[in-house]
């Protein structure tokens, strides 16, 4: 999968995360803003990095605004944003 342009998925509602994906500069750069950052920062980053690796992505800028999303929601929102960003506009 190749990230071609910025794309977003998710909402700012409770239990959701809004993820924006953009083309990177040769590395993975994640900017996380979470209401549960103190407790789950590392876990959220881990879930996102695992999915990026699974999709074979080594260069991307990710902005995530999290309101307590579970792992399954983080994975779903990131996957959809990645697919949207890889499609021709």
């Amino acid at each position: 999968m190749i990230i071609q342009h910025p794309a977003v998925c998710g909402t700012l509602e409770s239990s959701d995360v809004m993820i924006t994906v953009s083309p990177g500069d040769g590395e993975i750069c994640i900017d996380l803003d979470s209401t549960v950052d103190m407790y789950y920062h590392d876990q959220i980053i881990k879930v996102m990095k695992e999915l990026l690796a699974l999709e074979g992505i080594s260069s991307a800028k990710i902005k995530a605004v999290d309101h307590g999303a579970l792992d399954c929601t983080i994975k779903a929102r990131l996957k959809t944003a990645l697919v949207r960003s890889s499609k021709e506009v």
Partner: protein
Amino acid sequence: MRRTMMFLPGNNPNMIINGGILGADSIILDLEDAVAPDQKDAARELVKNALESVDFGGCEVIVRINALDTPYWEDDLEAVIPLKPDMIMPTKVSGAEYCKTLSAKMDEIEERCGIPVGKTKLIPLLETAIGIENAFTIATSTPRMEALYLGAEDLTADLRCKRTKEGNEILYARGRLVTAARAAGIEAYDTPFTDVEDLEGLARDAAFVKGLGYTGKAVISPRHVETVNRIFSPTIAEIEHAKAVFHAIEEAKAQGKGAISLNGKMVDAPIVMRARLVLENAKAMGMEVEEI
């Protein structure tokens, strides 16, 4: 036992992750009307991930997919069938061919994923005039059929009439659907009551369709679950009567009697069948019922 089926919007993680604790017997993860066209991909991915990892606490899980005249239905099936939901709810089902097309696609996905072909059941949503008229052929179109479900909002638009709380405009459709379902040996489920605040109206509506022979009712709000569950559960009096029917049968057998009576009334086959259903439902609700 399936008394309540609760709709949950497929793109709302907060509602989906709490789906198993709201008291409904079944939850319907909705990829159709509750999802905007530009969010179909997001909802499909969210429902897929939820099916993979959310514990719905023993709730039956149904996925409502988009209609066959949209570009979404095949992607919906490809995403969810491998994760083994209990049932698929196809929408705007018009006839047997519709169900056969859908079932053939489900066969293909199940076979590819190593799932026994036919395992995923169907509960088609009949919400058009042609769907209601074809209810029996739909109900018998594939062995996947588990139940028919009436959708009154789209139906009344198709009939060009106003949807009312009294529901006179859908009386024919309600009768036709439950008769078709019972003739095919499957269950029948009623349309939701859409006034979230009117619990008395809901109770009247649910009791009315229970009286027509419906098995249960869909709900669109957690507030409606308790009322619908109560209406569609056997009462203590019904359970006691059902037990008495079987005791009367045992007693008559012991005495070598052919004809059986209870409280001066003849116990015939339909009474025994109804008593059996009451006790089966009571047992499914976790009540202690002696073996019948």
